């Protein structure tokens, strides 16, 4: 078979990156592959992609996909600040942030929350394994109460659930998934990228070295046994036509700002992803019943994103020159005279 290309004429290989240096079997590597698939299928132009990250295993992964894109591996917990600044400099860029549970729920919790508050147009993926891998297996703040460390220590603190926090803040896109569930992760990544605003995607991603044992609630086996998807997700990009046959009342269609559609096929109880209070309830019920609720929890496709709210022009600010940015000589001398 000759090389197949996507809508911008690139083969799938163009979305690959450097070889991973993470452990074999790491959930993050699966997410990297899902990312490659999603970006390829969306036909994202690599030069318009900006891969942003903080510090930790998760934050290394932007090196492992779309090698020709620009990436910025910054400081711990501060990916949102770098992303916000880069986005303001050039609104044309597609901002894709990759973070971890330590990076997001501990050191970076403030920036995570404030990025949501501003609704900066970006995708924010949390590769969530409940543990600090690079520093050898300490609990992170997303570890569940009572979950057990590899050497037997029991977590005595309540977890911080990034999705619950995001929902409480009124985040415009909140989803959860599992690294082993490509069928769900890929359309959610696409939807997150298509969404205009901050899209939080919390992906449980087991750490095979430090957090994949009995007693962990972030292990492959625990997640497989406890995952409860609220709806089957499919994504139809703006450049494809919607052709879905479905029984009335079994499918929800969320139209995004760019003309894409998220199609949600009802599985159990019907969940309205535009109802924020319902999303909070679904999470709380899952928590009470010991399930990991996955899927698109909430979306508000109409909320104004930060750059729009701030009246930033579509033309990248970084392209503006002296003529646009300086006062004219007349304005300048008039202004100076006002100080007399």
């Amino acid at each position, binding site marked *: 078979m000759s090389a197949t290309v996507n809508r911008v004429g690139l083969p799938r290989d163009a979305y690959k990156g*450097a070889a991973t240096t993470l452990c074999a079997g790491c959930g993050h590597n699966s997410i990297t592959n899902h990312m490659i698939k999603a970006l390829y299928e969306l036909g994202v*132009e*690599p*030069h*318009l992609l*900006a*891969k*942003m990250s903080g510090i930790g295993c998760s934050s290394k992964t*932007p*090196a492992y996909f*779309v*090698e*020709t*894109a*620009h*990436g*910025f*591996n*910054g*400081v711990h917990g*501060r990916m*949102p*600040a*770098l*992303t*916000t*600044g*880069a*986005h*303001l*400099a*050039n609104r044309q*860029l597609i901002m894709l942030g990759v973070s971890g549970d330590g990076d997001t729920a501990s050191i970076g919790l*403030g*920036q995570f*929350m*404030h990025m949501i508050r501003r609704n900066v147009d970006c995708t924010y993926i949390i590769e969530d394994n409940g543990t600090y891998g690079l520093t050898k297996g300490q609990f992170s703040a997303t570890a569940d109460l009572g979950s057990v460390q590899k050497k037997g220590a029991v977590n005595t603190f309540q977890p911080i659930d990034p999705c619950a926090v995001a929902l409480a803040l009124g985040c415009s896109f909140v989803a959860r998934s599992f690294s082993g569930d490509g069928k769900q992760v890929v359309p959610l990544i696409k939807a997150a990228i298509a969404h205009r605003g901050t899209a939080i995607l919390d992906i449980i991603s087991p750490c095979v070295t430090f957090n994949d044992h009995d007693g962990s609630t972030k292990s492959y086996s625990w997640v497989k046994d406890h995952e409860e998807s609220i709806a089957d997700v499919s994504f139809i990009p703006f450049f494809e036509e919607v052709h879905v046959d479905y029984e009335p009342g079994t499918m929800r269609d969320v139209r995004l700002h760019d003309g894409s559609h998220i199609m949600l096929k009802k599985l159990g109880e019907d969940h309205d992803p535009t109802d924020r209070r319902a999303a909070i309830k679904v999470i709380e019920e899952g928590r009470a019943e010991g399930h990991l609720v996955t899927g698109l929890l909430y979306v508000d496709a109409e909320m104004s994103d930060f750059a729009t709210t*701030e*009246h*930033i*022009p579509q033309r*990248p*600010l*970084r392209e*503006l*020159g*002296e003529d*646009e*940015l*300086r*006062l004219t*000589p007349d304005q*300048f*001398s008039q*202004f*100076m*005279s*006002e*100080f*007399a």
Partner: protein
Amino acid sequence: MTEPIVNDLTIQAATVNGSGSQTANLVLTRAIFHMGIPVAPKNVFPSNIEGLPTWYQLRITPEGHMARSDKVDILIAFNVATWREDLKSVRPGGVVIHEEAFSTADVRTDVTYYPVPFSKLAKSKIQNDTLRKQLANMIYVGVVAGLLGIPWGAVEHGVKRQFLAKPKAVPVNLDAIKLGYDYWQDNFSKQDPYRLEPMTGAVEGKVLVEGNQAAALGALMGGVTVVAWYPITPSSSLCEYLIAYSDRFRLDEKTSEKNISVVQAEDELAAVGMAIGAGWAGARAMTSTSGPGISLMAEFSGLAYYAEVPVVIFDIQRIGPSTGLPTRTSQADIGFVYTLSHGDTKHLVLLPGTVEECYEFARDAFDHADRFQTPVFILSDLDLGMNLWMTPEFKYPDKKFDRGKVLSKQDLEKLAGEWGRYRDVDGDGVTYRTLPGTDHPAAGYFTRGSGHDEQARYTEGADAYARNMDRLAHKLETARHALPAPVVEESGSPIGLIAFGSTHSAVIEAREMLAAAGKKVDYLRVRALPLADEVARFVARHERVYVIEQNRDGQLYDLVRLALPAELVERVRSIRHYNGQPIPAIAITGPLMDREAVPA
């Protein structure tokens, strides 16, 4: 009565914070400036919204001295809580205008008192309750105008100028001033020697500008498009002026689009992070902070240094450590900022000594940052940043932006994609970068704060690390020669002074005082770090060199000695002032004369 003292006096208004006294003081300042007389105001204010004591010093000299005076000629005592202490600051023979109701039991007898019933006047003549408190301060403007002979026309100008944006406020304020003016004429005869007379030739072409206003204008003229900041005194006003100026000059009325984004961040970590993110993506970006904020920016500053991202960072210094004295001035961040971050880090630091330099350095900092792909710090301080300074009007820039070594799509095509982000092809330590969004498959690279090689690939390799660090040192050496050179004023004296920043105004005056006493001294003003070679040459040309600065530990003194060959180190001495009040000239001349009196 003694000889008249004309246009050479210091007024100090001791008032209550939040009472509107600042407006009254500014009206007075502008009225006197309008007479053609040089003015140098200094606002000493508390970290408080309302109720604590505050002082405003207005120094008036025919020469245009702008340093703080250590002597008060005319005290306006408006605050009962501090009145006894304030009285001590007046020089013998000075004048005290005070609220009549203050107790005068056992007060000193070597000054002239003019008691004024400010409260009664305000109560009887100003009907509106809310206005009364604000306008009470205006009454003393009138008394001072009467006392010193400020023409009514100048007073009117001062009020109109101060309420430029609120012309409706002009008549009520003038009425209040008139109360004081009339009270003076009706109740007192002049008992003191102080008077003001219109001058010519001293203030023509000059304006009154705060350093933070100057820096905000400089940043706009330097092409800043992304500003992220977190409120902190004494830096806040810089970004607030930027917001105001942007609304006026960067807003497209038709589309309501703005060619700038000013973000109030959640903290200083985020503020500098946003600026660095924007700088990485190619915008001219900045943040401004002070005190604790600059400490918080240390980690990100190291990232920008090591990953080589342009960004401009203003530090409007205040007293530390910790919260310190948030509303008092200092020059104690210079050592810290120079190497801000863990690890081997060294930054480009600009040291404006005048408000004109606040404008110029702010403007040019963006060129330096782009040219050298590194953070550029501008170290101002509360005194320079928040007080009004008399200055020649600023000059319109005669240069275009220097965006530094940025490879475009066309450049990459010519190179057939062969380039390395951190490869020094020109031998100056400065490498080429590409910006996100550049439509060429070779444009993208991975920026990181971890170890990297010439191709921006991750490496923990020993040689690659050392090579990169050596290149960064080389880059800084290249940059050093492009930064503002020291200003040297020399006439063959064996004694030299070295200073930087707002200490400049005190040095000017100190040199005049020393010259008048028969002791001419030379002067080198440092305007940037890393230090220029001229500093060592200056020391070599002098037998004794005094480094004068506003911090406890002699931080510039240390940096100067480090830059000297061993045989010159002994020539350098340190004069330090660090009580939070702007340094007066006497804090230089006093210690210098003491040290000179001791045989070496």
